[in-house]
Each structure stands twice: as C-alpha cells, then as structure tokens.
C-alpha cells in the first residue's frame, strides 16, 4: 500500500477514475503538461491525451460553465481552479447554472470543481481563502472538505461519481504536510461516501466539531487535555453539504458541550450553521454555551505575524476547550 501525501492522493483519485471511466476529464489553467500550479494533474495529459486534460484560457466563469455543459452532455468534468480564491469569478455559473439545473428540470450536472483552499502558507488575501462558506447557502451544490490523504482520495473519487456538482475544497496547507498509506487503484481503491462525518476520537466531556486544516489541531488539543483528565471527542465533518447533523447531535447529546472550529473566518462560516443546529436540536443536552473558534472577520493578511494573528491556532482552540471543560 503506497504512502501518499494529500496532494498525491488527489492526483491518484483523478487518475484512477480516469482509468475506469472515459467520461472523466480534467480542465483548467495550466493543468496539462504542467500538471497545474501544484502538480495535482501531473502526467494525466501524457497518460490520457489532451482531450482529457485540457489547458484553458484564464476564464474561471467560462471554465465552470463549460464544465456544466459538458456534464449535462454526459461527461464527468473536473474543473480545477488554480487557487480556490478565483472561484469568485465562477460564482454565478455555480449557483445559477450548476446548482439549480436538476431542481428545475431534472437534468443532472455531474461535475467537480477542485478548489485549492485555505491559508497558513503566506499567500495573502488572494491566495488563502476558504471558499466553502461561499456556497453552503446555495441548495444544489455538495461541498467536500477532506482532512486526510485517505479522505482526499476516497472523497474525490466519490465526488467524481456523484451525479451532482461538487465543490471540492482541498486544503493547500495539507498538500504535502499530511501523508499516510492509502488504498488506491482504479478498481480496488477506497471510496469514502460523501455526507458522513468521521468520529476521529471518542470522548465524554466535550465535542470538538471541525474539518480540514483544523482537524489535526483539534486532535492535538484532545491529546493535551487528555493529560488534564478531560476527555474530548473529535468529529471531522468531511462534507458540509450534505451535513451529517446526526453525528454532531449524537456527540453533543452525549458530551453536553460543543466547540466548533474552522480555519475560515467566524461570521458566516459554516460553524454558525452547526451552532444553530445544535442550539435547536440538542438544546436540552447542553451544559455550556456553544463555542466557536475561527479566524478573524477580516481579509487574510500577508505578513507572517499578521497571518498568525488571523488564523485560529492550536492555543486558541486549547484555551476555548479548557474554558468549556471547566464550565
């Protein structure tokens, strides 16, 4: 079983789906010979030809719109945004065409938009955005945010097979920083179902609900608190739409305390939705306020000390968790 980085897992997932399904193709800026800005599509053009790995002009709205049309015409496009930030230019195509087509007329739009997401890499305001919360409001789009190499692989394969448009938020910070053995292979590779949260650590005193880059931080906090005799449960949502509210509610009903953590900024982040669901449906089990830890409600500053201030760090999570535990 090969040990793959998160980025290699993404590449492997595309490769394996392309092997078994001729309809699958990748498109985007510099995805061909170059393999994209991060190498996620490396060698796919050499392997599958230039009709299945298509270099496009710089035109995100056009790219996503073309993917919608190709999907409706029976293909399975994977559109790459060079950075997630640029999906702002394709917002209209995603919410107007992709999201609403099936509801209106029963015609499915099986496509994936891959978004290299997130901060912590010194990218500044325009190369660091977390875009998942740009979309969870709009019915008709699935949103996937893997935290591990295995999930990146298995969820991307599921996303490609899904008959619906999927915004696949792959966290750049994790690209080369997380690594594990992954069951790959066109026929035997692992599929991870979209819509199921993953219970990463069981605990009884407090639930941390998170996804993507902050999952590792939450686990570290759980370790730290274990030494202080606080038992922390950690849930990785993995997908925001569909949202596995049952997993979250089960956990909070058990622990009575919820701490929601994401790298995205606080206001309008997905955490608000999670908190609202808890406050409505697990109210009777709550022993403490529902807490959120997230980034500042500002653009993402460039200079390293400012970016650190902006991001939710392990210490911020630890402090909030300690507070909650002591409540």
């Amino acid at each position, binding site marked *: 079983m090969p040990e793959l980085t998160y980025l290699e897992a993404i590449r492997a997932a595309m490769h394996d789906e392309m092997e078994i399904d001729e309809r699958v193709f990748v498109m985007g800026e510099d995805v061909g010979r170059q393999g994209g800005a991060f190498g996620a599509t490396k060698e796919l053009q050499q392997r599958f030809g230039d009709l299945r790995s298509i270099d496009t*002009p710089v035109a995100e709205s056009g790219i996503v719109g073309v993917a919608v049309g190709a999907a409706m015409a029976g*293909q399975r496009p994977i559109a790459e945004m060079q950075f997630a930030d640029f999906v702002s230019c394709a917002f209209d195509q995603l919410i107007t065409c992709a999201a609403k087509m099936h509801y209106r007329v029963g015609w499915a739009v099986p496509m994936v938009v891959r978004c290299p997401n997130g901060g912590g890499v010194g990218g500044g305001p325009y190369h660091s955005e977390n875009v998942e919360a740009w979309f969870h409001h709009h019915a008709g789009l699935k949103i996937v945010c893997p935290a591990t190499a295995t999930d990146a692989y298995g969820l991307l394969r599921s996303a490609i097979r899904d008959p619906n448009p999927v915004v696949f938020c792959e966290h750049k910070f994790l690209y080369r920083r997380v690594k594990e053995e992954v069951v790959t292979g066109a026929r035997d590779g692992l599929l991870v179902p979209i819509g199921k949260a993953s219970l990463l650590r069981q605990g009884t005193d407090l639930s941390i609900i998170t996804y993507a880059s902050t999952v590792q931080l939450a686990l570290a906090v759980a370790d730290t608190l274990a030494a202080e005799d606080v038992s922390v449960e950690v849930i990785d949502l993995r997908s925001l739409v569909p949202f596995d509210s049952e997993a979250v509610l089960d956990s909070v009903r058990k622990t009575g305390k919820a701490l929601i953590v994401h790298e995205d900024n606080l206001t309008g982040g997905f955490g608000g939705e999670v908190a609202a669901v808890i406050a409505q449906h697990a109210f009777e089990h709550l022993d403490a306020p529902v807490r959120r830890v997230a980034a500042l409600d500002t653009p993402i500053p460039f200079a390293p000390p400012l970016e650190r201030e902006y991001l939710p760090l392990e210490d911020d999570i630890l402090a909030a968790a300690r507070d909650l535990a002591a409540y």
Partner: protein
Amino acid sequence: MSTPARKISAVPPPTPAPAVSDETALDLYYWMVLTRATEERALNLYRQGKLPGSYYTGRGQEAISIGMAVPLRSGPDGDWLSPWIRDLGSYLVHGVPVWRMFAQFMGKEGSTTQGKDGNLHIGGREWNIPCQVSHMADMIPLTVGAALAYKQRGEDRVAVTSFGDGATSRGDFHEGLNIAAVLEVPAVFVAENNRWAYTTPISKQTKVTDLYKKALGYGIPAVEVDGNDVLAVYSAMVEAVDHARAGRGPRFIECKTYRMAGHAAHDKFESYMPMELLAEWSDKDPLKRLEQSLRDDRAVDERRLEGIRSRVKDEVHEAVERADADGFADPSEAHLGVFAEPGWGDDDA
C-alpha cells in the same frame, strides 16, 4: 405534411435561399405559423390574468427561431439547442409539445419544469434542450461545454445557442466564445440583434453594433443575415452547422432584426421606442414575407397555406385545453429534486 421532414441529417453544401425546396419552405411556414399562433394565444391568456409572472414575446423574430432550429437533429442523441427567450419556435421545432409550453407559462405540473420555473425556461434531456437561466449569456459557456463533450467522444453532433444583442456585453459571452475558438468545438452561436436590450438601444450597449464583428475578434468565422428572412437564416444555419459538424470549429451568425413589442408584456415601450422604426419593421414581418414568397415565387396554392393555418389553429386550441386541464404540482414537489440520486441517468445511458 402530417410529419414534417424538419430534420436534416445529411449535410448539404451552402444553400442559397432559392435552393431551399418547396417542401422545406412549407415546413418553415408551418413552424412559423405555429409559433405566431402560440404566442398570440399566450399573450391573450396573460392579458386575461391566466399566466403568472410576465410574458415575453418573440413576435417578428420567428424567422430566426425557426430558421436556426429546423436544420438541427432532434431527440436525446441529437443536437444541443439552447434558445433565447425570444425563440419559442425553436422549442417547438426541437420537439417540445405545444401544450407543455402553455403548461409552462401557467406553472402547471405538465410543464417541463413541473412549474418550478416559468416562461421559456424550458428543457429536458429528451429534446437535448438545457433549461435556460435568466442570466443573459450564461448559456453560452454551457453550450461550448456540450460541444466539447461531442468533440471528446467523436460524435458528429453540434451545440447551438442563441442570445440577444444585450448578452454580448457580458463576460460569459466573451469567455465562452474565446474558449470555443481555442478548443475548436462544434458550436454555433446565433446572435439576434433586435437593436434593444429592454429600454436600452444598441448604441448605448456597444460601439460595434455589427455583432458579427465581435466574433471575428475571437477568430470565429461569422456572417450576418437578414433576420427577417427565414430562408436566409435557414441557409446560413445549414452552412454553419455543416462546418461545425465536420469538425471545422465554431461558427457565428448575426441575425439583424427588430424587437416588435415591449421587452415583456408589462413594458410600456411606446415611451422610448420611435414609432417610425416600428412601422418600418412591421413591413418586413417575416411571416408575411415568407407567405408572399410561397405564393409569388413558388406558386404554392393558397388552399395549402390555409390548410396549414387551420391545422395550427386546432393544435393551439387543443394545447391550451390540455394545459388548462392540467393541475399544479403538489406543494410537496417544492421540496424535491435539489440533488440527483446516485445512478442518475445510468439506465438510459
């Protein structure tokens, strides 16, 4: 003419208008009469308060909606056609039954959207008509994408979309046409230059009021035709489709025409539209013109034309009755269909 031979499956060489056969000319006539009658009836229903929303008519632009649709192959494995809101006729030609058009305007269950969307936001896989959105020019990249799919699979299908002059101002027009050109996909773009975008005259939309010149800026071969002459539109379309189907890349056709009514039924266009222009264009009515040509140039018997008109009358009558009798979808339908289920489309693939 009970089953009009409206689809061309072989690709004829560029057809000058006189070479259009009488049979085809009569076919075009049938569709234009049907389109006009359907729209007139719909407008009446709107005025009687029987249609929710507003009503948009393509009266005076039927030569385009019909001329561009007739050369295409229909059916789920046929050509992709994404017509603009002025092109009711295109939907009919490409296969949507008349009664479902009325059902759509009424928001009934029998509409192609079960009442979830209105006016000409009509479509379905059975006709290979995507359901257009309101946002002007958005369907252009989609059409390029469908064309790309055909190219990738080596199918000799084309993807066609039409849009108004107003849509050429939008970014998606630009991005879509540029990508189509670079990827050399079998797409045909039909611009309907009716000189107005709502109340805005074309002079305030662009300095380059010959829209076909814009296509040249992307390296797409383009022609302009008299959009009120259905034989001209038809012939240009045959040629463009031929070109695209043969794998020689996208094509662009500008149809010069005029918007003969308000933007929508509620629009008091008399306040901004010069009446002389309207009168002038009224004389160029595409249906009158075709009728005249059928009579004068082709010596078609008046009784034959009358037969078509009365058949249309019946068809429209029946269609309205059927739509009227149709119900609204159950309110629970509002909850359904956000996502396609796994395996969607597998059975009919």
